[in-house]
């Protein structure tokens, strides 16, 4: 992670043609760019291509980047657009799934096997409910919560206004509550 002033300087250098500065930017943001593309495109191969093409297109579009604006939302908008284009042309999108086994982090309390199983089943039901949402609602929930993007970043990634993010998230949460009524 680079701090904001350093990132601004790197963007300026890249704008002047400094590819080493752009390399630092790519290394800083490639994780979130790839994960965003994966959630949008639905498979690793398309996500990889979308992230790579997104970084190339963003570099070539640096002249249109507004100085002083937050950089990450601008970048994610380009990458997400690439990923969405691939999703449109793909026959189907893979569903998201849970990791094979929960990995305990240092310092975590160890739950009982029964509690762990119940928690896993419950999260599996939640993920299935998210996947049953309409594409618009599912993408809003995925960006805002699963990827932990800010409202501005979600708006940029989805190509919609911030107010539309709020309303889509609100309606999607309502829908999820209805779906999971009794289970929550």
């Amino acid at each position, binding site marked *: 992670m680079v701090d904001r002033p350093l990132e601004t300087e790197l963007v300026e250098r890249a704008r002047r043609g400094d*590819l080493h500065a*752009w*390399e630092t930017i*790519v*290394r800083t943001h*490639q*994780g979130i760019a*790839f*994960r965003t593309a*994966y959630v949008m495109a639905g*498979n*690793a*191969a398309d*996500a*990889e*291509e979308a*992230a*790579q093409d997104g*970084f*190339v297109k963003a*570099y070539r579009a640096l002249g249109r980047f507004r100085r002083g604006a937050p950089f990450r939302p601008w970048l994610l908008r380009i990458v997400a657009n690439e990923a969405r284009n691939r999703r449109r042309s793909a*026959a189907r999108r*893979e569903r*998201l*799934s*849970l*990791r*094979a086994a*929960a990995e305990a982090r240092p310092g975590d309390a160890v739950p009982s096997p029964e509690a762990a199983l119940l928690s896993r089943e*419950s*999260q599996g039901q*939640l*993920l299935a409910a*998210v996947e049953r949402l309409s594409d618009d609602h599912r993408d809003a*929930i995925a960006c805002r*919560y*699963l*990827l*932990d993007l800010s409202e501005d970043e979600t708006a940029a990634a989805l190509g919609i206004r911030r107010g539309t993010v709020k309303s889509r998230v609100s309606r999607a*949460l309502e829908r*999820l*509550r209805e779906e*999971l009524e009794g289970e*929550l």
Partner: protein
Amino acid sequence: MTSLEIRLRALGHELDLPPDPPDLATRVLAELQGRRPFPWRRAAVLALAVLAIAVAAAFAVPQARTAILRFFHLGGANVIRVDTLPPARERSLTHGFGKPLPQAGAERLLGFRMALPPVHGHPPARVYVIGNSIGTVALRRHGRPVLLSEFKSFGAQSLKKLMTAATTVEPVTVNGGAGLWIKGAPHTLTYFDRSFGFQERPVLIRGNVLLWVRGPLTLRLEGDLDRAAAIELARTVH
């Protein structure tokens, strides 16, 4: 924040996301550093590169100082006609495809989703992966085993077939895209390994082969199928 929102945030940490692509920065820089020539120049450079690769490929195989008679390029595969085949070990239809993995694990390793024919709700029991590059599933058609292999192109040399004049190569169309139907005498196959580079251990193939391209993937069907049956099966692979 509501309990539902907390659970959704936690869900984000429990997702089975693939690892970040390796060295994305290097690939981005390589693409940016490569000047994009005019289309005619690019095409000429590409044609020369394919020719150079084909020549190098044929002479790279030990004891195969062969004369190149003709070559075809399709997706990530090069099909090269030579006057003599190099020594090669024979592979059966049931051995030598790499490590068997569940479909999801294999796709993570390969970095792409396998395109498959309808399997009536059941995923293939195993996907065999060679060199983290080529995924193969064994199918049965009319009681006979048929292999479906898929790989993403890593350049014009991802997979190479050498064959003699006794093997026929015929252009075909599969789902509106280009394909090649390879029939007749045995031919050899070598491939590019994402981890270890080009493998110089050609294997001998005796079955007929259909090669075709689907998006970024090159696919091949191998087995005791005639041309019509192979194309019919290929059309169902999505």
